[in-house]
């Protein structure tokens, strides 16, 4: 038997195992456990021991029994060697070991003799590690945002690592930040404004974009190629170069601090991409169907309304969701155009909260949850449409 693959396997898998355990320890620390040391060396030896035993036992035992025995052993040893912690911590440790050992099921003495086994081991564990890494790095800030909104500023200053939520308190205290931002900071009103602006932008953009996209996709006219390239070029110019002239003009026209002003700007900035996305889809609709419509004596209005729109509903849904997302998340224009709290959107309101250094962070995070949650829910629910919208429109971002 070659020893090189075995050693590489033991090292890499133990490093992977160790990193999951460290993440678990970090998460446990954030629940208020007082763990001061990651004990990397000692835990690494434990991990190597476990994986070695796994290979050593091989197929002599049934897989399920084997992994349960190993997990129990690991947890017991860990308990013996480390500081005392609550039961749920060991339970988590047990489950992690169970997960890890079931992941490495295919590794046995025979597998380690295969060709390219070193590469396979490395690729295998890089993937596993990658999944854990990405999930942790992405979800961690969202997790912190969420749990901070249930804490208080004072508790966090005393112990910035304790994010445990005390459900023994009455529910009002747990959700206090949310009550405060809705009562004192008027977030109900901002949600309304944000929804109004976003939905309004979607509707107006579609009303303008569908006929224009139809013209670009189907009709012949002078300057057509020029127009379709300029749509893309215009789209690449950033909001920041538009801000100063728009600010001066809007100030003089009195359009600042108004929902109408925002609607106009949002619609104009999302129109190019909406036209670009829709015309691509319209081109894929067979022309014969329209010809049949023409025979029936429909004019272009009828064709768009009765043939094009019903046939391209999925594309329209993508565009609508994408435009909604842009309008809901938009920040620069709302920062520039809105000074009056009466006309704030959610993004602007959260920015306004930070203007006062005294604002406790749990209110800020509660506001962030309020603005993030709807868009994430919409994304998860309509993922299919939004992903195709993102792909088509993501020349921007």
């Amino acid at each position: 038997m070659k020893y090189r693959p075995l050693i590489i396997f033991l090292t890499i898998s133990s490093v992977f195992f160790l990193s999951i355990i460290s993440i678990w320890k970090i998460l446990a620390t954030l629940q208020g456990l007082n763990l001061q040391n990651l004990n990397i060396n000692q835990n690494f030896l434990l991990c190597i021991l476990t994986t070695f035993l796994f290979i050593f036992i091989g197929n002599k035992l049934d897989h399920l029994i084997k992994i349960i025995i190993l997990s129990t052993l690991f947890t017991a040893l860990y308990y013996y060697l480390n500081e005392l912690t609550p039961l749920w911590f060991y339970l988590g440790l047990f489950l992690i070991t169970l997960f890890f050992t079931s992941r490495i099921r295919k590794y046995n003495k025979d597998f380690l003799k295969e060709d390219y086994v070193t590469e396979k081991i490395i690729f295998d564990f890089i993937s596993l590690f990658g999944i854990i890494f990405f999930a942790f790095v992405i979800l961690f800030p969202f997790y912190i945002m969420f749990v901070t909104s249930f804490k208080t500023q004072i508790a966090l200053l005393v112990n910035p690592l304790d994010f445990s939520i005390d459900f023994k308190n009455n529910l009002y205290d747990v959700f206090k930040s949310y009550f405060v931002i809705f009562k004192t900071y008027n977030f109900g009103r901002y949600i309304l404004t944000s929804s109004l602006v976003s939905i309004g932008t979607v509707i107006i953009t579609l009303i303008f974009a569908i006929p224009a996209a139809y013209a670009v996709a189907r009709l012949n006219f002078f300057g057509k190629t020029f127009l379709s390239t300029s749509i893309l070029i215009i789209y690449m110019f950033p909001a920041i170069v538009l801000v100063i002239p728009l600010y001066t003009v809007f100030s003089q026209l009195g359009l600042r601090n108004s929902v109408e002003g925002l609607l106009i700007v949002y619609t104009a900035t999302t129109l190019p991409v909406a036209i670009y996305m829709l015309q691509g889809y319209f081109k894929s609709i067979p022309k014969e169907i329209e010809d049949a419509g023409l025979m029936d004596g429909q004019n272009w209005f009828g064709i768009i309304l009765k043939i094009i729109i019903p046939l391209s509903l999925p594309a329209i849904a993508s565009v609508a969701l994408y435009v909604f997302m842009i309008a809901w998340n938009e920040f620069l224009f709302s920062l520039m155009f809105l000074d009056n709290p009466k006309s704030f959107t959610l993004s602007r309101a959260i920015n306004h909260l930070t203007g006062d250094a005294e604002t406790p962070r749990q209110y800020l995070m509660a506001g962030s949850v309020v603005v993030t949650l709807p868009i994430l829910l919409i994304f998860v629910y309509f993922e299919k449409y939004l992903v195709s919208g993102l792909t088509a429109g993501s020349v921007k971002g």
Partner: protein
Amino acid sequence: MSDTLSKIEKRTAYTLLLPAVLLVFAIVLFPIFANIWISFKEVELKDIRIPEPRAKKIIKEITENQSQLKILYRLRNSSLIESIDDVKFSDKLPKNIKPINLDSRCKFSSNKIKCNFGKWEAKYKENFEILIQHIDNKKIDKNIIKLQKPNLSGNADNVLLTMKFTLKNFKKVFIENDFIDLLLTTFYFTFFGTVGAIIFGIFAAQLVNQKFYGRTFMRSILLFPYVGPVVALAYTWTLLLDPNSGTLNALLVNFQIIDQPINLLGQKYIMMNILGFEIKLRLALTTVIFFEIWRYFPLAFLFILARLQAVPKDLYEAAEVDGAGPLKKFIHITLPQITAIISILFMIRFIWNFNKFEDIFLLTGGASGTRTLPINVYQQGFGVSDIGMGSAVSIVIVLLLIIFMFIYFKLIGKKANEI
């Protein structure tokens, strides 16, 4: 016959396009050109308001004679810089009330006082008095007089519309503004942000392209940073990285990895000792770049994943038969398949990172060495209130963008349409 048909077609096309084109023209194209105009002017934020003649009406009773009242108009020019030409004033009096001792600039006819004040210089102020008297010597009701508001009108130059131009702004942009540093920071941010996002995107796409339990769930999660609102995410990261009670620093100190909290967003440089070499790293800028990568790698991921899923499976099977390992498969099959999409992604993301404003603004506000061109537009225009200067920086951005787009369309514009 076909001639009229094509005419109708053209007319229809123009009617369909007109609303969209007009709106985009007004809100997107017009400002880009307006920037050129403004950048050659000395304009500050406070000049944007057009100067107005204003009057405040104060009524004074005369104790010895109840049938008379004194009206005092405090007149002023609202602007501190601009003069107003041809100021006209009018105020209405109730019936049976007449002004006495009327100023020579004024006339009284059909119950109206009309005055022609001529030109008011900047900061102009005047206390203008009129004595009024009831014809029948009755008592004048003070409130009725007070309710009537005077009308003023005048012609003022709108600073933005005058024909005075100057090259001062551009001089300032290139000479006084630390322009080289500004440009370098922008390119550093743009380049590393783009490359980092693409590398992480390839990695993530390669992962999700395999089969594993919870793959669709993973794909949704990977897009979260891009879908979430910037404001919320940027503030969450600011709290995470906060040196005093931020989670990250607290964790690192708790596990004894570092002794002192590091101010990741507020410290311009950090000395690093790598293999005996002292390296001065732009700390805040690097942190901002990592946020940028975190937020935008999902986009690269999405594109590359779509491409990877289109790679025929038999290519890999054939390689397996030939005895190729995973590394060889990646280098010889996967990479060649995604180079085209990567080059397009690089160009697009480069342009968009170059334009990025919100992320840096929310994280550092452009402090501690994170001042990029878009941030500078805001700082000049609204921080220092120098609108002309801000426009001049915008012009620099637009010119650079035009160069990038030219390269983009020359190099891969045609390829982009194929994919």
